[in-house]
């Protein structure tokens, strides 16, 4: 038998307990809802991308990101002044296709070139690469910023490399502000890469994610076990662990982050405590409180912070912690106005 038997005999007919109609239509229908809810965005339903209504902005470097759907508000919720010019949502947890990325890239190119912000997953990398090649054929200059901040994955030739997770928000915000103030293509890409280099993330899952297509959790997690180092697509993590108090989990995540990207006393950081979708805000604040104390004990200053559900994994109960070593430039650009459905200040 080519395909081994499923461990559970009733795999085929799950009850998909979600607010959806046909699972195949989720992305398109949600996009229609987004379009109706946000007149300040332009949603191209045929090409499946979301753009600023005022795009293309002549002379401004444009930022395009995208990836599988199911991580909302990332990326569509970050389209707007000060952040992305366009986002390409793929099917749930499936990277967008080159045609879609190309259409978005051309739609927002204001003549100053386009930065692709790509989370480091095999599918995303390949599809954006094909799109960038096609854009080059049409004389659109594209620079790619790869985000790979998830230190749970070994960065070795033995893996597809570190995954792009929470730091994506920081790259999009900071590079977006740089573009908004008139940065050139190379400059915008450079600061995006610098944010990524300065960032490290680590995540925990308490439950597995349920996609509309599968209709049931992607893996079984006993009542007293968690996935440490989980990815944002329900990929199982670095290891299974016993559930521990939040204080212990936060300390271990911080250790993993600092082992990969050491910080020293007097460093300033931007902190993101990010919910993966199913974790209540009250727990995220509790975790932030613990993290703030641990960083203070090490003499590290939290210059800016964000607590909430930003880079999610559908209904997964879990969270990620991202630390970005801050420069003055980062802080200036972080504070710059941003006006998107998912992130808004100063405007």
């Amino acid at each position: 038998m080519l395909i081994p038997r499923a461990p559970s005999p009733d795999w085929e007919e799950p009850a998909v307990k979600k607010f959806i109609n046909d699972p195949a239509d989720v992305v398109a229908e949600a996009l229609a809802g987004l379009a109706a809810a946000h007149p300040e965005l332009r949603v191209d339903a045929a090409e499946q991308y979301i753009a600023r209504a005022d795009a293309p902005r002549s002379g401004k470097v444009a930022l395009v990101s995208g990836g599988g759907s199911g991580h909302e508000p990332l990326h569509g919720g970050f389209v707007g002044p000060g952040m992305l010019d366009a986002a390409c949502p793929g099917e749930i947890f499936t990277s967008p296709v080159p045609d879609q990325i190309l259409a978005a890239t051309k739609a927002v190119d204001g003549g100053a070139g386009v930065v692709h912000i790509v989370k480091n997953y095999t599918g995303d990398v390949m599809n954006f690469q094909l799109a960038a090649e096609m854009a080059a054929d049409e004389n659109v200059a594209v620079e790619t910023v790869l985000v790979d901040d998830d230190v749970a994955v070994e960065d070795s030739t033995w893996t597809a490399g570190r995954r792009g997770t929470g730091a994506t928000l920081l790259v999009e915000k900071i590079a977006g502000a740089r573009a908004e103030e008139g940065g050139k293509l190379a400059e915008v890409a450079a600061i995006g890469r610098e944010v990524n280099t300065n960032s490290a993330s680590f995540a925990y899952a308490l439950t597995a994610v349920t996609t509309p297509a599968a209709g049931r959790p992607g893996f079984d997690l006993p009542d007293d076990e968690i996935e440490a180092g989980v990815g944002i697509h329900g990929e199982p993590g670095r290891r299974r662990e016993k559930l521990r108090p939040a204080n212990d989990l936060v300390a271990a995540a911080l250790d993993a982050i600092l082992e990969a990207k050491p910080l020293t006393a007097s460093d300033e950081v931007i902190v993101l405590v990010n919910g993966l979708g199913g974790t209540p805000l009250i727990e995220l604040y509790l975790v932030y409180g613990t993290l703030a104390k641990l960083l203070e004990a090490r003499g590290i200053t939290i210059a800016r912070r964000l607590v909430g559900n930003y880079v999610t994994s559908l209904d997964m109960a879990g969270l990620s912690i991202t630390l970005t070593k801050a420069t003055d430039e980062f802080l200036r650009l972080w504070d710059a106005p941003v006006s998107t459905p998912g992130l808004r200040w100063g405007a």
Partner: protein
Amino acid sequence: MEVDLAIAWLRAAADSVAASAGELTRLDAAIGDGDHGVNMNRGFTAVIAALDAGTFDSVGDVFVKAGTTLISKVGGASGPLYGSAFRALGKALPAGPSVTVPELAAGLRAGLDAVRKLGGAEPGDATLVDAYQPAVDAFKGDDLAAAAEEAARAAEEGARATAGLRARKGRASYLGERSVGHQDPGATSTALIFRALTAITAK
């Protein structure tokens, strides 16, 4: 192989992928993100629709159309990989309504090369290459049915063998040692596609 047979192959592959979509997704859920069956089914459904909408004089054009459609409809890792494979296969074939078995064999190898170039996977990395490579190696001789049968067997064996490997590419690689014991979904779908060819060539 003639145009009709090429289309019949893709149709058989589409049927097989549709029938096994749930199982492919289940394999992917264990070590990836649980969408491989959905991805492949969406892609091959689009391929059939695209082939139905066109007319083809050349075998190569059929495969180029299939590859282009997969690239533009699937996304994920499998879309560009399978899409590039079929495009490269189609482009490698001499133009015309019929190709010989050796020409097809060379085309399949061109497809494999495209996959390896784009994805960078080596044999043994526990990817679809581990089904595709042995299938291409086994696809020999002048008899299409026999070549297809050998290729399908080799692909199936290769797919099953991925369960013993540690994944080094794609999403499953994040698991490190924990990927061992799980059969690779992409290798499995590759085996299904080669098996589909035997269904329409077996005498």
